């Protein structure tokens, strides 16, 4: 049970930071006397939002998301490697270079293929 205390403390600090920030801005903010109607809009700049938020996203977003998640998860292998690389020595470094180079080649492919182009 002892080992859970740091997690509880962490949770308490993390949530109190959020409340503190919101509370501080509530206390410290400047209050306007009359509220202009634009204040109620989603974008205060006066830009009126068009259409519904529940729209179908363009498949391009998915392609980018898929490429991202693939490379994102592969970095999970870097953590155990980084913890042990000192003990494992040169062999581990060579291994990781091979791994990363293969990933990089995949990235070059995605890049040249235009999977990351955003337009």
């Amino acid at each position, binding site marked *: 049970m002892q080992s859970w205390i740091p997690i509880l403390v962490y949770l308490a600090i993390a949530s109190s930071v959020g409340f503190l920030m919101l509370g501080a801005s509530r206390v410290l903010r400047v209050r306007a006397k009359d509220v202009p109607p634009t204040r109620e809009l989603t974008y205060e700049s006066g830009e009126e939002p068009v259409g519904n938020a529940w729209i179908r996203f363009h498949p391009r977003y998915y392609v980018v998301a898929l490429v991202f998640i693939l490379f994102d998860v592969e970095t999970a292998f870097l953590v155990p490697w980084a913890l*042990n690389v000192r*003990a*494992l*020595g040169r*062999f581990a470094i060579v291994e990781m270079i091979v791994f990363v180079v*293969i990933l990089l*080649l995949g990235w*070059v*492919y995605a890049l*040249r*293929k235009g999977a990351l182009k955003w337009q």
Partner: protein
Amino acid sequence: MIIPHFTLNDFLPVMPVGVLMAAAIVLMLSEVFLTSTTRTYQAIIAALASIVAGGIAVNNAFEPARLVLQGYAVLDPFSSWTTAMVCLGTFLAVLLSAGFLKHRNAERGEFYALMLFAAAGMSLLSLSAEFITLFINLEVLSVATYALTAFLRRGPRPSEAGFKYFILGAFAAALLLYGAALIYGATGATKLVEVSAALPAAFAKSPALVYAGLGLVLAGFAFKVAAVPFHMWTPDVYEGAPTPVTALMSAGVKAAAFVAMVRTFLFLVKGIDPVIPFTVFSLLALLTMVGGNLLALPQRNVKRMLAYSSIAHAGYMLLGVAALFAPKLVEAGAKVGVLTATPLTGTAQDVSVAVYKGLLFYILGYTVTSLGAFGTISALERREDETRGNTWDLERFAGLAQRKPGWAAAMALFMLSLGGVPPTVGFLGKLFLFSAAVDAGLLGLAIVGVLSSVIGVYFYLRVVVYMFMRPAPIDAPAPFRHWTTELALVTSAVLVVGLGILPGTITEWFSRVGMVFGH
């Protein structure tokens, strides 16, 4: 911490895979850096890579059997021959694809890259001796084939086939993974050698865990090899996939999954009543042989018929697997130390060697024959057919003998080989396998096998009858001609006849097959 120390020797079994992977990456990058309009060079690179990889694998097959890479992989003739056969299958499939894709204007480096990645996964699967590597390699091969299945994105059919394959493949992989996790839980090890050593104790302590694990692993493999009753995905996926991919799936994927299954279970049956694995595999073999042939019987769609026929052939291979676990063999094995002890070096009298030989020769025969059969179909289907429903209908083969005698003769040859008619490699494969099964004491099952293959002869010959005795329809398509397709078909046809008449050296090599399983 153990600092790994590998010698170059350790990497010998993965050399073919290295060649395949390197070529695959080159092909993938060639697609984005070289934008030349003719892409036949990509097929040639892929074909050369599979020849080189196959050559290395054949060379490896004469190395003494041993565990390498700290027990994560094996180097034994069984896996090396499998790798060589996978490379042969990939070589033929690549050549078939070149013409097939060119006709559809869909030639892409990624296609060949995916094929080579799949081949690399198959080769690695056949030599994995540890659950993590086994799972990774199964996924390498599966993910590549999912993508290949849906490669031709015309109409809903390919994406449906791809998604169906994905769902069932992912399900099978999850079953296998769950089983591996339970076995790891029971034994505390993932290397098959250590698992097999710890299994008797684990079995005494928590039999339920071990049984559940074994059952799940078996179900996972049974999906991959398409054994009845885990076969329902096969016809849909085989029909929906591009035909050269279907050819690769029916030959390579199946062979690799079979070898991995045999290896895993030879390790995992330790401490278990030998009757149980024998019964289970016999039952699977029985259902798959009979089921596959009966389901193929009413099919008028030749591609679908071949899909069911591949199930039936998996059944014959399962007969060989069942023979390996036959009580007679297990007893004999206990005496000479085959099933329990160090790598077998093998003499010709040894029954288990005969089974290994039969199994390998059968896989070789099925590889060349099914590549040829699917290859002929792929050359006959036209691009315009994709929107029509009857692309592979029997009618399309009517009168082929008058129009294109060479193609009809090749197709007839492949059909006869699938049916097991001499003098083809299909006949010899069945002969070796069935006689080995009889020697192992599986007389009843072998008789069922022979009878069910007689059913098979009916629907294989029906294609031949249509080609030679029916008049051609008016809109009969001419085969698409491309030198790579023709080269692949001639190679398969020569191998089908050549291995059927003069199997000499090959069988001699296959009788020296050893397999690492436990110490």
